[in-house]
Structure formats: C-alpha cells, structure tokens
C-alpha cells in the first residue's frame, strides 16, 4: 500500500521533469555522422566519378533496389546509368560496405518524402554530389595498379615500377 502511494507520488513528480520528446518538424533531431540515410554517389578529389560500376552494391542489396549499367571509356569504367529505387531501399548500408571505391555512401538525411512513388527513383544525376563525402583523400585510380591514360603501370601511389623480366640487369 505504501509502495503504491510512493509510486503515485513519484509518477506525479514527472509532471515537472524535462520532456524527452523532440518536436520534430520544428526541432531537428541530432543525426550521427554515420547515420544511414539518403544514399549518394561521391566523386574523387579530382572531381571524377568514383563509381567503377563493379556491381558489388547491386549484388549486396537485399531488396534489389540498385540498378546500373557498366560502360568503359579510355580504360576507365563508369556507370552508364545508376538508379536507386528509394521506395524499396531499406537503408541497411550493405551497398556502402560492399563498395570497393567509397563511391556509394549513406548520409544523415531522411527527409525525402514524395507525393508520387515514381519520384522516389533517383537517377545518377540525383545521386551524384560534387564532393568526396566521408573519405576526402581517396581516389581509386591513383592507388590501383590499373593503367589508364595519363598513368601507366607502376606510377600509382606506393607502387614500384614493374620489373622488366626480360632485362639482364639485377
């Protein structure tokens, strides 16, 4: 009986406590930097698209909401189109984990409601941002051994020039 009265009193005191509610539209909640929200495609420090259309994100996606098509130009791979259907996306972040080039990234933004479902299909132009996202210095073609115009084999960062196996010099 006494414990019940004590409970009543303690509950009553909550009238004067701070409210935990965040009144959302007026008061924005804090979103952590690694919050899994709207997906973007980032660019490397030179302003080129990072995506090399390896399809790993599309494979990792549990709901099959990513679709893209590979195209090559001067030895570099690009997505011809890159499409994310956000009406299907569950924001699991697997695509970001699968991406070998840090191209696809999730951002702290969830306010993407639309009146029509088809407006939730984002094309490459909608996804691409102008910056590098969470990984500022990284450029895939600068560290990989792949030869592209302007960077031959052995000229990547931290890479030795290839050994000439037919030469006699040590």
């Amino acid at each position: 009986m006494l414990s019940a009265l004590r409970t009543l009193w303690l509950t009553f005191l909550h009238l004067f406590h701070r409210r935990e509610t965040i009144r959302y539209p007026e008061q924005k909640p804090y979103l952590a930097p690694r919050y899994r929200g709207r997906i973007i495609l980032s660019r490397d420090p030179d302003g080129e698209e990072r995506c090399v259309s390896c399809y790993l994100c599309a494979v990792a996606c549990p709901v099959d909401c990513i679709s893209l098509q590979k195209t090559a130009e001067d030895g570099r791979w690009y997505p011809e189109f890159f499409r994310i259907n956000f009406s299907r996306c569950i924001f699991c972040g697997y695509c970001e984990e699968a991406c070998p080039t840090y191209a696809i990234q999730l951002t702290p933004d969830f306010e993407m409601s639309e009146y029509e479902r088809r407006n939730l299909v984002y094309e490459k132009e909608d996804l691409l941002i102008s910056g590098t996202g969470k990984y500022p210095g990284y450029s895939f073609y600068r560290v990989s051994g792949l030869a592209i115009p302007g960077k031959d084999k052995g000229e990547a960062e931290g890479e030795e020039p290839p050994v000439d196996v037919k030469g006699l010099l040590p």
Partner: protein
Amino acid sequence: MSPIVSGLLNVVGILIVLVALAAGLTWIERRLLGFWQDRYGPNRAGPFGLLQAVADMIKILFKQDWVPPFADRPVFIIAPAVAMVTVLLAFAVVPVSPSIGIAANLNIGLLFFLAMSSLSVYSIVLAGWASNSKYSLLGGMRAAAQMLSYEVFMGLSVIGVVIIAGSFSLGDIVDAQHRLWFIIPQFLGFVVFVIAGIAETRRLPFDLPEGENELGAGFHTEYSGMKFGMFFVAEYIGIVLISAIITTLFLGGWRGPALPPLLWFLIKTGFFIGFFILLRAALPRPRYDQLMACGWKVMLPLALLNILLTGAVVLADRSPV
C-alpha cells in the same frame, strides 16, 4: 420562469456538459499521461492539441457501424446504450450547486446512484455475452465477478456517511457537511469508497474486464465505431460521476469559502478526475485472484469496521448521560 422550463434547462445543460466533458477528458487524459511519462501527449491539432478531441469524435462518428455476424444482434446493440443510460441517469441525483442539479433532493438519492452503478454491470456482461467470442466472454465474466464483489462494500462504505447525515438524499448529505467535511470523521469509508469507485468505473489498476494485454480489449473486443465510442464515453462519464459522488459524500460537495459553489464543485471533482488518471499512469494491474482477495478479505472487513465504529460513536453521542 416556470419550474418545468428551468428543470429542462438543467437536464439539457448537464447532459451537454457531461458529454462534452467526456470528449474533452479523452484529450486531458492523454495529455496528462504524456506529462507523467515525460512526453507531450497530443499537442498538434489546434491550440495545445485541444482539437484532438474533435478529430477523434469525427473519426469515431464516421466509422462503419458494424455488427459481427456471429454476435447476438439485439443484445449486442443494447449493451452500449445501457452503459450510457445508467451513468447518465446516475448523474440526476448529484447536487452540482445549490441551484444546479436535476433531482438532488431525491430522498433515496444515494440508493439510486448505487442501483444505477450496479445496473451498468449489465452493459458489460451483456456486451461480453453478446459478442460471442472468448475474449469478450472472459472480460464480461471478470466484470461480473469484480463489480459484484466491489459493489458490496461500496454500498457498505457509504453507510457511515448516511448514519452521520441521517439521510440518503445527496442534498441533505451536502448540507450536513456545513461544519466539517465527512472525509475527516469518515476517512476509512472514504478510502474504501475511492477504491470501490475505481473498480466500479473499471479504471486502472482495476481494469481487468478490459485487460488489454491478456484479453485483446476484454468485453468490447468485438465493438467498433460509435458503439465502442459509447462504451468509451460511458467510461469517462463514469469517472466524472464517481469523482462527483466522492466530492459530494466526503468533501462537502459544492461547499467552500470565497469561490462560487459551482467552481468549488468543479475544482474538487477535477482533482479526483486527475487522481484517477494518475492511478492509470502509475499503478500496474493486479492479478485476478489478488483483486478478489483484496475485495473480500480486506475491503469488506474495513467497510464493516467503519460502520461499527461510526454507529458506536453516533450512539454514544446521542445517548443521554
């Protein structure tokens, strides 16, 4: 103005105020519960969320009026009406202020109130029975057992008040408290009556007939639309009724210094309505056997003890020395 016209005005006025109050209470309850759980509660529709009650009313009025095909149709339809009618009728005997009140001086006013609150058990039992589903039946049976056992000492707990006041009329009981509110000489009766009142209105912690987490929604599992709404409104009017009766019996009704009688009545009643909501926010529901054991083994002896003491004191006071 002829007495008929003023009487009609009283009836219509109290009816409208009660129903509006019941609608408003849905908002007040959710808001207060929110505050006591460190939330805001409904605060979007209109100023402070006041229009939430209107929105809910519109919603529930426009819902489909559906009777399940397996239900006992006539009884299913009558049950919610019984719930409404009994609580509204019981309000007839409450003296709201010296001039407001429908039959405040009915010489069996208190008995009438007890009779009406007993009759309201029928609405629940009938609803549980007519729904023809297991959850509803269980809720109805619980309600029957709970309310019968709590009815017994609810009646006994007010006998002390009747002994002191010497009348069953609520008007006379209020008059008898012009020097001292009955909460002081009748504290035991007050406690027992409040607990019985909570059980009578089926509010937490005594809401076993509904028991959301065991029985779906108990006796009104199968109800929807305005039929459910009537149970809902009846429950809220029941809270107001019990609070008003507690005020009348133990807190001197509309009596109080300085402020007008109506305001005093509203303040006291509002206090108990708030208390009822606080109970819901704070206390868990007891097990069913605990509830029955508490009723028969604790509350009934306490009520009898109260009658014994009150009777002895009154007799000793009256007898010539």
